[in-house]
């Protein structure tokens, strides 16, 4: 009986593992599709049946970084012969580079949006984590009247639907000239991430034994010194994890960016879908842009692997 049981459960296990692998494949198809389309030729994106194996190309990335216009008429053979290989790729697709007076190729709108994304995500992350850490320390170590209510208030700001906040913020930003500015988005993202940062950091700081600081106080440190020299180093891992979470949130944010920016401070998320024009869309370029945009997040996910659970529950579940 016991042998039959264990054989049965071994099959049960194998079946489960097979299903996990199947699920894995299904879940990965969309990501594979983004990654692979970024290296396809334009013709390969619109085949029936869909192309899975193909000769990879770098052309989508050349197109992604450069400003191009459609070439009217036939490409000049002399110009084609003289052009470097990357320009030939673009010419073969019926496009030409847009160049400034000095003949330098102009960069595409994507490059500017990507830079905006980096600037806005980095600065807002820094602010949210810095403020969040000290506030978390305050809540963790000192008594505060109505502490739970304040913490609930802080968390509830995170739950507000972006559109609800965006309407009055837009009116206020318009009045003070912050629409379509980096500062405007940085403020919004800092506010959005701040509550998360407070909750997550409170979880991390609660775990650092109070005795460390108390020993330091006995040794003649001031409270401030103890915070900077004892608590902060102890909380380094937590700070790093919180920062990565905040960065990802700001990096991925779409709704505020859509409503508050249109050009100068626009980040990549609203820009990438706006490339989807009517008619013939070049999916290879969109895929290349998406891939570059998603890769940092994928890397960060592996960095965060041990903190994911904590992150998605605002520090409530620590495992």
């Amino acid at each position, binding site marked *: 009986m016991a042998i039959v049981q264990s054989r049965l459960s071994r099959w049960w296990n194998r079946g489960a593992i097979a299903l996990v692998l199947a699920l894995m494949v299904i879940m990965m198809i969309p990501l594979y599709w983004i990654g692979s389309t970024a290296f396809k030729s334009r013709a390969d994106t619109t085949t029936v049946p869909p192309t899975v194996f193909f000769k990879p190309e770098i052309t989508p990335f050349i197109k992604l970084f450069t400003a191009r216009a459609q070439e009217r008429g036939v490409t000049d053979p002399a110009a084609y012969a003289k052009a470097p290989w990357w320009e030939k790729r673009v010419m073969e697709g019926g496009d030409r580079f847009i160049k400034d007076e000095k003949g330098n190729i102009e960069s595409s709108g994507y490059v500017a949006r990507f830079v905006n994304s980096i600037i806005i995500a980095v600065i807002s992350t820094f602010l949210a984590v810095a403020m969040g850490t000290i506030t978390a320390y305050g809540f963790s170590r000192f008594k505060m009247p109505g502490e739970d209510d304040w913490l609930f208030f802080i968390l509830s700001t995170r739950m507000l*639907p972006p559109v609800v906040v965006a309407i009055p913020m837009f009116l206020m930003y318009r009045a003070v000239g912050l629409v379509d500015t980096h500062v405007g988005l940085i403020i919004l993202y800092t506010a959005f991430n701040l509550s998360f940062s407070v909750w997550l950091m409170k979880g991390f700081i609660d775990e650092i034994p109070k005795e460390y600081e108390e020993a330091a106080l006995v040794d003649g440190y001031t409270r401030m010194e103890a915070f900077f020299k004892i608590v902060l180093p102890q909380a380094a891992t937590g700070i790093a994890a919180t920062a990565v979470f905040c960065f990802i949130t700001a990096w991925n944010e779409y709704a505020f960016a859509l409503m508050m920016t249109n050009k100068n401070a626009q980040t990549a998320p609203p820009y990438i879908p706006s490339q989807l024009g009517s008619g013939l869309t070049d999916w290879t370029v969109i895929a290349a842009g998406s891939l570059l945009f998603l890769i940092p997040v994928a890397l960060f996910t592996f960095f965060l692997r041990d903190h994911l659970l904590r992150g998605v529950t605002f520090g409530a579940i620590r495992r």
Partner: protein
Amino acid sequence: MSTHAAGRGMSDLAIRNWFIIPTIVFLIVFNIFPLLYSLGYSFTDYRASMNDPVKFVGLQNYRELLEDEYVWANFVLTAKYVIMSVVGQVVVGFGAALLLNRPIPYKGTLTTVLMLPMMMCMAVVGLFWQLLYSPSWGIVNYVFFTEGKVWLSDPDVALLAIAITDIWMWAPFVMLLSLAGLSAIPPSLYEAAAIDRASRWFVFRHITLPLVAPLLLIAIIFRTMEAFKTFDIAFVMASMDETELVAIKLYKMAFQEWQTGRSCALAYIVLLAVLAITNVYVKYLNRLKAR
């Protein structure tokens, strides 16, 4: 309190205030103040696109919204979307967690890879699913042998198609929480059940499910709230009346039709619903923490 630091440096009280108050002020200025501002506008006929004098209209916006059957239709649509997407996420996510809850080679890496979709940018992912759903060359139609099926511009299935993308993205979230719950169940319970020759169903029903329930509930409440607020993915993927969720309706009213006053009123109705769910969520979160 601490006699050593007294006299030197800041008092604990001062430090507490310096550490906490700026954050609270910041959040009030950039979250609560705007909401009060829009509360004011919700009683007016203000249009941000015009310079007309603003007129106070009392509760008219609210009354009209609550009587507007199209607005109700948006809410019904959103409810449908929430149900499809959350049920799908729970089935796939909890199912995956049950499958993963055993010794599997490279389990850690496997789990992390499965988490990737939920970390990604919703707008970009949604955009790309358009290619997957493409009627003629999309891989979805190829895999399911539904050649030529239009997904995102068919009023009957567009919402479902969006929900499927949402499930793909967020089932990992439910999986993550469920796995945490499953791995916390003491093996001794299963051993005792094995000695009693309990059936697999009995074990699932009376050991696994009750012990995972608190975490699963957290996941469900949180995903319900997020699904209710859905904007990015549906906005990017389709633009039809049949996919106009409440958040999208709100966006259009405010930033395309410029009915600022009315949109502020609708925003408040949405806000109350979200705050109600948040309240429940935090209650369960605290209960879990207290354990």
